[in-house]
């Protein structure tokens, strides 16, 4: 009897010592990107002019996504750092060029991983290669490629463009007292995109993008024409319409969204 009582007490202690958790959980999840077929044909306005736009091609090159537990309100809160050492709860370190005109799921080639903590915001990394270095491959390292036709009452505007983020987007420091401000990574990261979900193992992250928003406020008529008669967006900061489009690509409201589908 004594032996039984002793064994019982020991079992109870062993059980008690094994129960509990430190809280939280590490998770792995798949991720898919979606464009929208609604972006193939849409109407928009710019500078008082209404355009009917048909997109034949629109793609976005994604370098990765980092999810944060901290909600951010501004467009860019980081002064100079490309990322902070704390606050991230999940990450998707995978390259994917997304067809922004397709409703079909486009899976990322790697799993995302992180904590099962509530995600309040995420950073979308664009392009390829080291995020804060200039490369010699900018010609082939386009973040966005698009092609289409816009028309309004005054005419038709076949257009095309590509957006690269390299020396062509380099910004000077804000002041001599802040030589480290305005690093190139700030141009390559769409940060602080609002989100609200809790990742879980086996679930699927769905990243959606609306290519129509890239052209919000873009006046196609002001885009310079080339010899073919195609309006080609300037890949740099020298043309206001191109800058408008570049800023739209990097907007953290209304362009990109992420939801999580639990299994």
């Amino acid at each position: 009897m004594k032996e039984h009582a002793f064994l019982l007490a020991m079992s109870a202690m062993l059980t008690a010592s094994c129960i509990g958790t430190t809280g939280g959980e590490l998770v792995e999840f798949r991720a898919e990107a979606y464009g929208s077929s609604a972006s193939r044909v849409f109407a928009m306005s710019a500078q008082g002019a209404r355009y009917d736009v048909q997109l034949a091609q629109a793609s976005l090159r994604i370098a990765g996504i980092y999810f944060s537990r901290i909600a951010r309100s501004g467009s860019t809160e980081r002064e100079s750092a490309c990322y902070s050492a704390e606050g991230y709860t999940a990450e998707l370190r995978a390259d994917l060029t997304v067809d922004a005109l397709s409703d079909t799921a486009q899976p990322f080639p790697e799993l995302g991983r992180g904590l099962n903590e509530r995600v309040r915001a995420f950073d979308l990394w664009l392009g390829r290669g080291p995020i804060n270095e200039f490369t010699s491959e900018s010609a082939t390292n386009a973040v966005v490629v698009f092609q289409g036709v816009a028309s309004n009452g005054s005419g038709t505007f076949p257009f095309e463009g590509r957006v690269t983020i390299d020396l062509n987007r380099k910004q000077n420091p804000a002041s001599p007292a802040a030589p480290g401000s305005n690093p190139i990574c700030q141009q390559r990261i769409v940060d602080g995109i609002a989100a609200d979900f809790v990742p879980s193992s086996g679930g699927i992250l769905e990243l959606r993008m609306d290519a129509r928003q890239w052209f919000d406020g873009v006046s196609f008529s002001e885009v310079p024409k080339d010899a073919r008669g195609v309006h080609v967006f300037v890949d740099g900061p020298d043309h206001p319409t191109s800058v408008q489009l570049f800023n739209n690509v990097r907007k953290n409201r209304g362009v990109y969204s992420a939801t999580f589908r639990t299994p």
Partner: protein
Amino acid sequence: VRAVASILAVLLFSANVAAAPGLIAPTAKTHSEPEYPSPEIAAGRDATVVLLVTIDREGHVVNATVDVSQGPYFDEAALVTVRKWEFFPAERDGVPVAARIKVPFHFAPPPGKIAVPPDPASHEHGKGEGVPVDEHVHPEDVRVVGRTNPTSRGAGDFAIQIGELGQVPRQNATGLMNLAPGILLTNEGGDGHAEQVFLRGFDAREGQDIAFSVNGVPVNESGNLHANGYADTHFVIPELVESLRVVEGPFDPRQGNYAVAGSAEYNLGLVRRGVSARTTLGSFNTQRMVLLWGPKDASTHTFGGVELYRTDGFGANRGAKRASAIAQYEGTVGESGSYRLLATAYGVDYQSAGLVRLDDVRAGRQDFYGTYDVNQGGQSTRFSIAADIESRAKDTLYYQQVFVTARGMRVQENFTGFLLDAQSPVQNPHAQRGDLIDRSISTLTVGGRGFARHHEKLWAQKQEIEVGYSARYDASEATQHRVSAATQAPYKLDIDNQPKLADVGAYIDGALRPIEKVTLKGGLRANLFTFDVLDGCAVKSVRRPLPSNPPGDASCLSQGDFGTYREPVQRRTTASFALLPRATLQVGPFSGFNFTASYGKGVRSIDPIYVTDDVETPFASVSAYEAGIVVGRSFGASSLIARSIFFGTSVDRDLVFNQAEGRNTLSSGTTRAGWIGAVRFGHPWLDQAAHITLVRSSFDDTGTLVPYVPNVVMRSDTAVHHDLPWKLDKKPVHVKFSNGLSFVGRRALPYGQVSDTIFTLDTSLSATWGVFMVDLAASNVLNRQYRLGEYNFASDWQNQNGAKPTLVPARHFSAGPPRSLFLTLGVTLGGS
């Protein structure tokens, strides 16, 4: 249990005791002192156990039985001790003969006087392993004066005589702590880095929550930037450790700062006299040489020892070179007093592999025994001298000790890779330069401690009272730089501190025995901590810098808002006061059963880095309680001591590892509860210790588990030893087989994770023939690939290659050593 009290006197057989014409009695060649059994402390009685000891022609104790018993505890203590003795055999007309003699062991509790009654001549006949006993002998009693041991504080007070279990393979003296229940030792920092200690549900890191001392000299380093209370016991030569006392809780008023989870005191001594030399060669190009010297006519506490060691280490970047020297002299003062002079010197230079990511290992990007940063490692030096004196005057025992310790230390660690070096606007543009921490610390510690313990008879019982003090002063200089991986040059100064700390404590302690078999021990301790910290890098950023005067890349700034000038330094001073009641109730023994209950409060002084000017420092306070049963039994020549202990502790401010800081940082309060079972079995040819600890540790505010601490720890140490039936050149060959088994359950890790289990088997086989010995030891015999320390945090080792950073927590680990073989050859000359 070694406990308490004092020795008190053991018989040492002097030479040339004639029992009959032509007969020379056996004389002790090596001897050790018995322990006063802790379960008897409460009674505090003097007792004399008389053993009948048969010594063969080779001088070995072949049989020992109790002639005059004083109960199982005293009997066992005497039997265990005498079995370790070696003799020069009795001789008749110059020819060795077997003999049986009576050996009285006298035990007196502290601060009892030495009183060895003369032993009547023995006239016993007997046989030892078939060897006829030829003659009666009359050994002469010789007193050996011993030091008083501290009073036992209940079932959780483990006084561990190393004895035969010293042969179980261990990496260093710190490994001896595995003989105490509930302890897990890990080390991610390398061969010269202190072990991280987990005890009873505490993550005591490198000493923050355990008060370490060696022969009474404190080892914990107050104000150490790497870890406040850092305790590196690698300077201790394992062969010189005679016993170890681990008190698992703050139950003894003598325990001062850092005794949160408990305390560990190493007691040095050298039983084997003469000059011993040992050379070890082993795996990973490991070489070790130890020279030990114990003058044959001096006590076991007079000795000298030198250790030289080098290894390439298992896996990448794990090499180490170290040397240690320890010398102590014990002299007598008056009839029963003694003094000791102790000097130690130690230096080590080592590399460290640090931690690696499990996902990298699984993906083949990193080796299990690999490293990311070969610049990790460090150097450490320690020099100390100490002197103490113990004397008695009537019924009062006096003790006084002074010590001086000089420490130097450099530690380079990188836990997070290339994660923390954020670009700030005022800095020139830079990429991640690497998170390697380079800490440099030098400390001078001076201090002393002492007590007076008095006993009186009252209510027909022995009553005791002790008053004592401890005082120490620590002056440190410490810096922490971040070092660029590309250039090895420091690019940032994180910390530049010069703390001057004083710790003065006083206590009153007593043992009250109102009736027989009931003892209430305890008292009150008070500690005052003062802090004077000069922060040499008090300003690291300027909220509103002037465009015409940007702070640039400098770490420590000499300007405030809008460019106003200020010195970059800031001095902060404050003080704290702690009152620490402690008590133990002991009831028994009843048929060998002792029941104890203990309560105590402990304290850990605040890390100087958290000191705020004139704000009472929020030191951490622990409340601990335990209830236990200790039972002792003798079965003929065998003895068994078993314990069952339930315990609980509550800490108001715990420490949890912070990978970004590379050290433990303050967190919220924690509570832990658990159970310990422990047994020690002794037999003439077997020494077995085993224990299991179950514990649950949780945060008070969230109820979640405290990370990193193991919930289940099991350990078994076994030594089997005997003479072979054959002899070589008429000399016996004594062989010893020993092994140590460890099991550590799954540890809770951050983010709901659990670690892998740990199961290791270490073993050794040794043989002694005459003055020679050979030992073959193997650690991790099963060659299990195991993760010794495991952590969950964010690190980025990818960014250095231009890849996308890893920013979310992932599993990291330090690898346990693979199977390792070590061959030791030894010789002892001039011993007697």
